[in-house]
């Protein structure tokens, strides 16, 4: 499974957004667009991503840019896993 599909699965499970996760495209806005993505959910999502991809996400990476769109989040994860 590609990183994009893994991120999609994690979003689906963490936010419980069901089929809406399947419709996410790289341009779909996340923060401010998906009501389930509140502060608690962002924190949970970051933890899930860390555990799944075995990465460490710094405070300043929990930023508006990282969670702006689905594509931005996938790019972020891909960069972290490549590092």
């Amino acid at each position: 499974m590609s990183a994009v599909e893994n991120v999609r699965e994690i979003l689906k499970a963490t936010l419980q957004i069901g089929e809406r996760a399947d419709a996410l495209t790289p341009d779909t806005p996340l923060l401010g667009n998906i009501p389930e993505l509140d502060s608690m959910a962002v924190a949970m999502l970051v933890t899930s991503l860390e555990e799944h991809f075995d990465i460490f996400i710094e405070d300043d990476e929990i930023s508006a840019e990282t969670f702006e769109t689905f594509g931005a989040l996938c790019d972020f994860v891909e960069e972290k896993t490549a590092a």
Partner: protein
Amino acid sequence: MQPFFFNSTAGQLFGNYFPATDDCEAKGDILFFPPFAEELNRSRHMISRQARAFNRLGYGVLLVDLFGTGDSAGSYAESSWEIWIQDMKTACDWLVNQKSRPIAFWALRSGALLAADLVQRYPQLACHLLLWAPVSQGKAFIAQFLRIKIAADLAETTTGTKDGDETENAPLGTRDMLALLHQGHTLEIAGYHLPPALALPLLEMSLTSFALPPETRIDWFDVSPSHTAGISPAARRAIEGWHKQGLDATAHSVKDVQFWALQEPEWAKNLIEETSKVMMEMTDLSEVASC
């Protein structure tokens, strides 16, 4: 279900005893160690369903609200790790006063640290730990909790609801928040007041560093929604550590939802099945009850 109040060191606590079902032989009692803050709210449905599953196997289950939580007295801000340890000791004493004795401690997430700490201090209390998705490192757990504040600051910045001058209200990072705790400040995170007396002991804790009596049996239930997960590295490390100490420790990999983190309640049926199976297989109960 038998709800009741009882006195502990810091105030009155709420307890709820689920007796074993009448038509089976009573095998002893299981004491539940609750998780932290929002994780408890999100887990109550699963806790009571597992409690009833244990009842049908002949086990009574005692659930308690720790001081400052649920229907018990006090607030999070007034609570401390030491108070919680004494609360759970008092809950054990309550079972003993009912002419019973806890034969297993069942814990969810950070409740596992509380259970292990209690066994270390009072090794005669119970010698079987059933750990649901236990927190193995207190430090990582607190860092994850502090992140909710970082995420909340992010949401405020994004939606423009943040008041005042940005430079004056620079969001706090994990390091800043840890420093505040060390200076004796209580932090407010997602509506919970986290006092240093709770956070600082947790920061130092590691599940495998507790000295458990040699007869302790540990069942670790590793819950992951992924198909390919297997046993997580954290669980594997812990089990190896316990084996080195000569303890009987087993990891169970369960493919299921991480219900304690979900906003909408979901059932983790595989987890209940796997946990019940472990207690059903405890045929030689005298072995456990006598240690």
